[in-house]
């Protein structure tokens, strides 16, 4: 390893209200190196890169670029010196064309006017050079997520690029597209560009990584070079414990069939049929864009169904409204707690109370609320999901991701539910909270509820589930159980259809 340092951070720290997101991290990147950031959701990877990208400001510590301390007041500052970041959340304008997006803020001009012809021509060249097969005149909203990702990467190639930061770039790409991306990363390496690469997929590291830095709960655990790292050490460094300590063993006592979906069709879902039994945990895995979330949102009546039937405890709820579906005993926990899970400006108690007020059993169906009874139940639920006493009257936006997720879990105990659908139940949650949430899932299954866990985190889906549905491109490609649930098998079905259908 040469001692040349392109970019480094000294004691970089970021304090959010109530959360220390990043705590004194020293990180360095050499030219021509691929440096992987590895860690759980909420470990601080995104916080670290957001500061390197100029999107966020450190509370303490400094960033050095080519040996000089730099301060970014915004993303454009970082881009000016050649640090370009491809975020997970795309920065594309959906209503503009591909070419307009690529040249947003850099439009070639003829006098005071935008030179559209030159823009299209340059875009075509750039896309071609990167091997992406996309028309520059296409409207971005019409593209697939993978294609949008490609545009996002293409945008990075203005001016002189010296550091490229990629945040989970392969999350929505097919195998072939991933190969393409990796070739292209190698090409950049040979040009001396330093690459910071965030990914959950250990199997990718051997192909591209030079060094790996592991973060956990905002602290740097260590940096290892690729040739001395193996999977189990990495996982142990990431989680701080053995896998067996995180996931509880859930006994499989399948009861009666509670939820039955037949021939469900909706936008992006083709003919999905499956069923769940009481006391069973059904895992649902698939890539981003495979339709795993969409399938269940359509079951909940959140998107319109084209055809197919949904039965809950033998009751037909194919055409019921979301409110009626929830009242019949099907609960959906949203993957996005901020956008559709919680009322951020209210306290934890207030959030829990809404579901209690709506749950019939606590109000005797009267239009008037017995606040005393509600307060009592709120307390019981808070104890059950382990919300700390001092957090119960705090505004939810001030709580950490893990505590917010506990409140979100608490909400589903307010209503009478037979089938729980947990969509990405541990996204952005620290490892301690994850273990607590898994225990709740175990308790529910033990109590004879059916639990569906939709997860992009494959170990999570595999370790919790008695049965595992795999989705690819809107089709259910596998319904695995028992020993069939192993990584090779599951990954095979992830990509199974990617080349063939659609």
């Amino acid at each position, binding site marked *: 390893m040469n001692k040349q340092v392109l970019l480094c951070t000294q004691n970089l720290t970021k304090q959010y209200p109530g959360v220390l997101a990043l705590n004194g991290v020293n990180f360095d990147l050499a030219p021509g190196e691929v440096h992987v950031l590895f860690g759980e959701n909420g470990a601080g990877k995104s916080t670290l890169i957001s500061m390197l990208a100029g999107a966020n400001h450190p509370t303490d510590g400094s960033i050095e670029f080519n040996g000089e301390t730099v301060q970014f007041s915004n993303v454009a500052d970082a881009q000016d010196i050649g640090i370009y970041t491809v975020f997970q959340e795309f920065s594309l304008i959906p209503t503009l064309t591909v070419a307009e997006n690529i040249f947003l803020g850099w439009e070639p001009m003829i006098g005071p006017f935008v030179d559209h012809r030159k823009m299209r021509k340059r875009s075509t060249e750039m896309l071609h050079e990167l091997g992406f097969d996309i028309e520059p005149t296409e409207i971005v909203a019409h593209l697939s997520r993978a294609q949008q990702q490609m545009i996002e990467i293409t945008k990075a190639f203005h001016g002189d690029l010296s550091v490229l930061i990629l945040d989970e770039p392969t999350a929505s790409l097919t195998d072939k597209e991933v190969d393409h991306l990796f070739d292209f990363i190698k090409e950049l390496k040979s040009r001396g560009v330093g690459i910071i690469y965030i990914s959950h997929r250990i199997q990718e590291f051997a192909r591209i990584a030079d060094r790996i830095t592991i973060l956990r709960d905002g602290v740097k655990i260590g940096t290892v070079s690729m040739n001395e790292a193996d999977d189990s050490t990495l996982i142990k460094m990431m989680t701080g414990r053995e896998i067996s300590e995180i996931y509880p063993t859930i006994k499989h006592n399948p009861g009666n069939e509670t939820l039955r979906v037949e021939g469900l069709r909706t936008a992006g879902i083709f003919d999905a049929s499956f069923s769940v039994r009481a006391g069973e945990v059904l895992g649902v895995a698939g890539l981003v864009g495979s339709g795993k979330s969409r399938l269940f949102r359509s079951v909940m009546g959140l998107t319109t169904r084209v055809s197919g039937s949904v039965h809950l405890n033998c009751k037909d709820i194919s055409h019921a409204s979301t409110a009626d579906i*929830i009242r019949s005993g099907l609960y959906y926990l949203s993957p996005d707690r901020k*956008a559709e*899970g919680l009322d951020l400006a209210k306290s934890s108690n207030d959030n829990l109370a809404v579901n209690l007020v*709506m749950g019939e059993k606590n*109000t005797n169906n009267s239009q008037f609320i017995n606040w005393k009874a509600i307060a009592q139940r709120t307390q019981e639920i808070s104890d059950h999901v382990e919300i700390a006493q001092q957090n119960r009257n705090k505004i939810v936006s001030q709580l950490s991701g893990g505590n917010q997720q506990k409140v979100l879990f608490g909400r589903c105990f307010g209503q009478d539910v037979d089938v729980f659908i947990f969509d990405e139940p541990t996204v952005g949650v620290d490892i301690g909270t994850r273990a607590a949430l898994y225990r709740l899932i175990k308790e529910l299954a033990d109590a004879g509820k059916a639990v569906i866990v939709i997860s992009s985190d494959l170990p999570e889906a595999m370790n919790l589930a008695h049965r595992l549905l795999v989705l690819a491109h809107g089709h259910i490609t596998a319904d695995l159980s028992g020993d069939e649930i192993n990584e090779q098998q599951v990954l095979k079905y992830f990509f199974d259809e990617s080349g063939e259908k659609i």
Partner: protein
Amino acid sequence: MTPESKQISPFGLLRKLFIKVGVLPFFLFIALVVFTLLSPRFLTGQNLVNVARQSVYLVLVSMGQMLVLISGGFDLSVGTSIALTSVVSALGMVFFAGMFPDMIWLAIALGALLGFGTALLVGMVNGVGVAYFEVSPFIMTLGVSSVGAGLALFLTGGVPVSGLPFAFGDTFGFGRVWNVPVPVIIAIISIIVMWVFMSRTRLGTQIYAVGGNIKAAHLSAINTKRTLMISYMICAFIASLTGLLLTARVESGEANLGSSIALESIAACVIAGVSLRGGIGRVENVVLGGFFIVLVQNGMNLAQVSSYMQMVLLGLLLILAVIFDQFRYRMIMSGE
């Protein structure tokens, strides 16, 4: 507020007060000081009772406006509901009084019912547009307010409807029970009902939940469309009640009643700490907010500020209140 508050520094206390109730106590204090200095007649018992009586109409409309603001929208058509109620109920009363000259109270009741019905229709149109067609509340209620104002003028030809039964104005405009003006009694009853509704009923809680996060509310088994619809209809109903009281006060049906009340009621709510983002607001504060606006108008009258200048100041006050609301929201979200 709590005994264990860490610092008792005066600044810390003011900050806490600001976070808890918003900008209203500060505005109220400043207004009292300024107008007392400007006019010796301002801070007298007689004048304050007068302000309380005058503020009945704005307080009522503000409570309806608050409901819609909490649900996450706003209603620019409250003035139109007032005007339409006034015109329709006046026309109705005159018509039925001609039909049943012996049963004057029946005529009044039928006319009032017609007025309420018209306003509920306005509220329903707003609700359907906002909830089911997802038109932005701004455009929807702005459009409806033009439609309604046009209809009110069309129905009357721009001429006030006169010849209302005397009993109507004598009772609801100038009547007193136990020496308390009837409009004040009606307002007090409405405030109590509203308070119970917002804090003790499931529907009230649902309105808060929908305004706080409509998607989360949807995923908690709340029928969000119905909730929005009901908010707009209750708002229109309260505006309609106000319209009847004003009609009784002026003793004629007029199409230009309530022309400035949309702005005033929104200002009253925002000053009283109702969040424009929805989900936050309290009945008792809004009552005080309505009172405050009328107090300022009264103070400006006594200080001989011209009515044109009053419009300028009221607009500025609204913008200032919204700016403070932004600060407060940021402070709430980021912790003490």
